[in-house]
């Protein structure tokens, strides 16, 4: 046999062998996909009506946390509405979830009103109603103490969700009761085990406050306040009272366990010298700041390979609508606008998307939100310039008459940086006292 022929024959033989291997799925082409089609899946045999939808056994999303505090797996969700049974919940003072009979439940409206009123849930469902997507967020969400040591987006920022809420505007009920002159405050009371209550300015009560009975189209879950809760668009979760059974109209905020954070500043003059918060400072304490987080790729996840990788995330603000989201893929040195491809609703989680090509090198990525009022999400290092690096300072900051200093305690809206390592794994890069632009190029270290 001549050498040329034998080499050609060997080539043809080996080529056939390769083809055979590929047909059997033994070789993976560069795209990473299996060449062979999948075997037929097992079938779920019909056995009568399926009254409630069932997740595929391959979908394993759940909340994490405890009986009284649980977080949403934001990093694994799409769109901007949180699935009902993955919505976060937080109960203060280890509050235990009550199991109310809606037929027995009552909402009392009293205090500085012309006529105190009592409503059943059935009556409230017949009152004029609206439906809106609104986010809720716990005031402790994004707490720097947690951010310093946690690994995933859910661990750091999972105490926020966005659902579509249906209910009666509180203003309609207050007008029915007839608010008396001089009444500037409304205090919402809960039927929960901790007798939680929280105060809001009359302006909020008469504008966007909602007495909600439905969440994503049906009665809310037990954990989220069944059968009635208050939704205050843009306000911190503590004041959106669950198991709402009382609305008291007053001329001062109540000094309840949970209200003390908001209505009192600790004066630097010393213990015992307390100041009542100014209106503007109080509004900053009550309202969530412009905030955004990258949900993919985020801490604990992995970019499978170099090349196109769309960065995706959520933005929201207590100031109303998200106006703009910017993304940096070089540790904060440069910023580019992300796309906001979906409908933008005020006081709702808003999905942003950013086309990116990862070159395989280590870098730090982060997002920055600007809301319709012009509030811009800040780096933790910027906030520290005003307050110092000790994030354990809880109640002791003074906001100042002109509120020129961004209050530390209420601003959990720090920019959240993620470090993408060379192997594609993503790590929490939040470090107090460090400008993220200094993190780029630091080998190793999770930042926590």
């Amino acid at each position, binding site marked *: 046999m001549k050498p040329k022929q034998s080499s050609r024959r060997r080539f043809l033989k080996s080529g056939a062998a390769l083809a055979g291997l590929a047909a059997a799925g033994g070789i993976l082409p560069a795209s990473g996909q299996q060449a062979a089609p999948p075997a037929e899946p097992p079938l779920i045999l019909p056995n009568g009506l399926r009254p409630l939808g069932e997740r595929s056994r391959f979908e394993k999303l759940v909340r994490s946390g405890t009986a009284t505090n649980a977080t949403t797996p934001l990093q694994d969700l799409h769109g901007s509405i949180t699935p009902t049974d993955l919505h976060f919940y937080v109960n203060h*003072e*280890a*509050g*235990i979830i009550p*199991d109310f009979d809606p037929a027995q439940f009552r909402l*009392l*409206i*009293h205090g500085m009103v012309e*006529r*105190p*009123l*009592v*409503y059943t849930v059935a*009556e*409230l469902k*017949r*009152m*004029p109603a609206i439906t809106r997507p609104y986010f809720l967020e716990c005031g402790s969400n994004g707490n720097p103490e947690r951010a310093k040591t946690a690994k995933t987006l859910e661990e750091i920022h999972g105490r926020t969700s966005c659902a579509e809420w249906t209910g009666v505007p509180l203003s*309609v*009920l207050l*007008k*029915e009761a*007839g608010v008396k002159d001089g009444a500037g405050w409304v*205090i919402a*009371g809960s*039927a929960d*085990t*901790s*007798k*939680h*209550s929280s105060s809001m300015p009359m302006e909020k009560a008469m504008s966007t406050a909602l007495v909600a009975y439905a969440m994503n189209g049906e009665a809310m879950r037990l954990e989220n306040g069944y059968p009635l809760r208050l939704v205050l668009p843009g306000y911190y979760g503590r004041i959106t009272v669950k198991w709402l*059974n*009382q609305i*008291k109209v*007053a001329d*001062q*905020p*109540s*000094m*309840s*366990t949970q*209200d*003390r954070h908001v209505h*009192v500043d*600790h004066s630097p003059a010393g*213990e*015992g010298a*307390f100041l009542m918060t100014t209106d503007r400072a109080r509004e900053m304490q009550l309202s969530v700041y412009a905030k955004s987080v990258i949900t993919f790729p985020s801490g604990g996840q992995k970019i499978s390979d170099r090349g196109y990788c769309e960065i995706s995330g959520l933005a929201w603000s207590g100031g109303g609508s998200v106006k703009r989201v910017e993304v940096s893929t070089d540790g904060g040195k440069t910023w580019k606008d992300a796309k906001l491809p979906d409908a933008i609703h005020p006081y709702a989680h808003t999905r942003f998307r950013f086309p990116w090509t990862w070159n395989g090198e280590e870098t730090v990525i982060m997002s920055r939100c600007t809301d319709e009022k012009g509030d811009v999400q800040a780096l933790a290092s910027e906030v520290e310039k005003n307050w110092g690096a000790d994030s354990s300072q809880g*109640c*002791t900051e003074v906001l100042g008459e002109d509120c020129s200093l961004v209050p530390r305690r209420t601003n959990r809206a720090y920019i959240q940086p993620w470090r993408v390592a060379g192997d594609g794994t993503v790590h929490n890069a939040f470090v107090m006292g460090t400008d993220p632009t200094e993190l780029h190029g630091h080998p190793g270290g999770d930042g926590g």
Partner: protein
Amino acid sequence: MRWNRSWILLVLLASVPVVQAQRAYESLGRSATPEEVRSATPIVGPSGEGLPPGSGTAQQGAPLYASKCVACHGALGEGSRLGPRLVGGEMHPFATTIWNMINGSMPRNLAQRGRREAR
């Protein structure tokens, strides 16, 4: 019929709206009774308005503290691994916040607060 003054006055009176405003959704919700308002969970103002009737002294409170609070907060309010320090803290700067905290949530043990578990 002649339109004399008394008829004109009657017609005018009949068209004057009732002084007390009617509710827009009269058939939904009803007036709360004084008892319902009185028995609502107290929401207490900063200087104590809204507190239920009552009073006490530190001497009267001491045995209550010993039986309900010491286990978690310590004999001198110094705290333990079960409960935070009470004396010299800044979490509850007003008497009303202390009252609200105790009334709503303390002692944390469910049985001691006379609650029943459903399931």
